[in-house]
């Protein structure tokens, strides 16, 4: 009550002129606040994804929709006229028969943006800090990397998506109109190519696409100078063979009429090669030993038939088990790997040795020595040839 009386006394003491001034100041401030809010409103509206992710759930919004539009240069009086950041579908023209609104120009798509004023050339750099848990069966791996985007003019608000993976951590380190730096940690997958297994080289790919802007607004360019592996980069069990990066213009099969806009996709590839020494000792040496043990049986005479048979049959079991163990570590493929071809040669050689032994039961006993002799001189060269064929083919 006391405070109310104090306020009432204070107001009574105020002159009418002062009250008028106070009222004018409050109204002026209110006007300025409302005007500022209206000016900011279009940039705060989330942009609708109309590109690669339109119609599907976005995996990550690396550049959040609430990101302030890079309008700062345009606001400066001395700066050149900046590009338009309005929503292109809003000013697309509707035809007389309704349907999909279109634009005039190279792309008719309602998501093309002729008013943007030409594409921003964006240099894409990537520093791969770490690759963990590479699983060749699934082609899956976890990557930790920095992504830099540097452009010659302000970039439109972007919505980065990862078509071949998902991101668990997306940290925006820098976000300026012409420079952006992100750190991502995520899981990705690339189909393995096992034709040359165990001398295979796998490419681990990280694909990045801007979901919001077509090539009429953003032109991605791989930045060779700023694409690197971190110091001490190493993937256990693999030798780093190469890095490569490219940009492809991605065209969607028509989702609607005049869906003719291309979207740029950045693809980074890390080449990992299996160690040659490891491949030789884990695949070729055991296969050769199996064949050589079986080959030695060809020198055993008929009265050692049991020993001779034991040098081949158990080797067949060993070969099958060995082949099975090899294939357990790999996904099923529609083609033969080099290891498969080697094992087929091993099976063929074991069959040959078994067949030579069975010749004793086909021919008369008087031919026993001849079968032993010819078995050696025909079987041994064929074995070597078969093994070489399995290794080289």
């Amino acid at each position, binding site marked *: 009550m006391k405070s109310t009386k104090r306020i009432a006394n204070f107001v009574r003491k105020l002159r009418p002129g002062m009250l008028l001034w106070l009222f004018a100041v409050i109204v002026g401030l209110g006007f300025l606040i409302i005007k500022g809010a209206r000016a900011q409103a279009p940039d705060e509206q989330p942009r609708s994804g109309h590109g690669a992710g339109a119609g599907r759930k976005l995996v990550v919004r690396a550049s959040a929709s609430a990101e302030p539009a890079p309008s700062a240069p345009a606001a400066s009086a001395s700066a050149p006229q900046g590009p338009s950041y309005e929503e292109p579908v809003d000013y697309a023209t509707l035809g007389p028969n309704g349907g999909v609104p279109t634009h005039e120009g190279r792309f008719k798509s309602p998501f093309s943006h002729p008013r943007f004023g030409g594409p921003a050339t964006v240099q894409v750099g990537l520093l791969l800090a770490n690759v963990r848990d590479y699983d060749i069966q699934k082609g899956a791996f976890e990557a930790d990397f920095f992504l830099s985007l540097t452009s010659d003019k302000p970039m439109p608000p972007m919505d980065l998506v990862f078509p071949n993976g998902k991101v668990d951590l997306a940290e925006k380190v820098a976000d300026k109109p012409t420079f952006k730096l992100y750190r991502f940690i995520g899981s990705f997958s690339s189909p393995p190519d096992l034709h040359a297994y165990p001398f295979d080289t796998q490419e681990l790919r990280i694909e990045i696409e801007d979901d919001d802007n077509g090539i009429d607004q953003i032109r991605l360019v791989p930045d060779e100078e700023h694409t690197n592996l971190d110091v001490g980069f190493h993937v256990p069990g693999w030798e780093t063979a190469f890095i490569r*990066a490219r940009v492809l213009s991605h065209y969607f099969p028509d989702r609607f009429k005049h869906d003719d806009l291309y979207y740029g996709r950045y693809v980074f590839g890390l080449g990992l090669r299996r160690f040659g020494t490891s491949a030789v000792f884990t695949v070729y040496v055991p296969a050769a030993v199996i064949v050589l043990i079986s080959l030695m049986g060809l020198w055993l005479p008929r009265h050692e038939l049991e020993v001779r048979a034991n040098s081949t049959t158990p080797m067949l079991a060993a070969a099958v088990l060995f082949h099975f163990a090899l294939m357990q570590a790999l996904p099923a493929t529609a083609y033969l790997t080099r290891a498969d071809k080697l094992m087929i040669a091993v099976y063929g050689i074991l069959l040959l040795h078994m067949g030579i032994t069975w010749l004793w039961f086909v021919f008369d006993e008087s031919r026993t020595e001849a079968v032993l002799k010819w078995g050696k001189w025909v079987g041994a060269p064929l074995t070597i040839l078969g093994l070489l064929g399995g290794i080289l083919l």
Partner: protein
Amino acid sequence: MRTPALVVVVLAALSVALLGCKRSSWYQSNVELTRIDPVRVDDQGKPLTMDVEFSWVECPGLQLEVIRGGKDFAACLSKYKLGDKVPVRIEKHWDEAGFWDWDVHEMGGCARPPDPDDEASFDTIRECHPWVINGATVGFRCNIIPEKKLLAACPWFGRY
């Protein structure tokens, strides 16, 4: 008697061959200094450790390396400036991890004994080529495993 003697000779020859395979070799080359940064300094501002980045200008491709040296190396190297081409002495040696590695032992007449615990020194050995598809350059590819041309000019880069 002849057979055991033959076996001994063969084993001895194999041992020599195996030992010889892992023997270190030394090379000389010239490099261009691209960055000289003191990492740690003492109270007087004199560098205690220094990073030197250089380019292997006599080797094909873009081969960069950073080595870290101690205070004597830093003091000695202060006579050079960026862009200078200086001679280096390289040792190619067998690494217990199962590959060949190399160390720069001397740069521009300044001794730089490599520290086995040094994790700051590193190299980016790569040979890059444009990636062309349908006649258009769409990106690049950098081979990290040295190509034959590089190994012919600078054999210490061979790891296997």
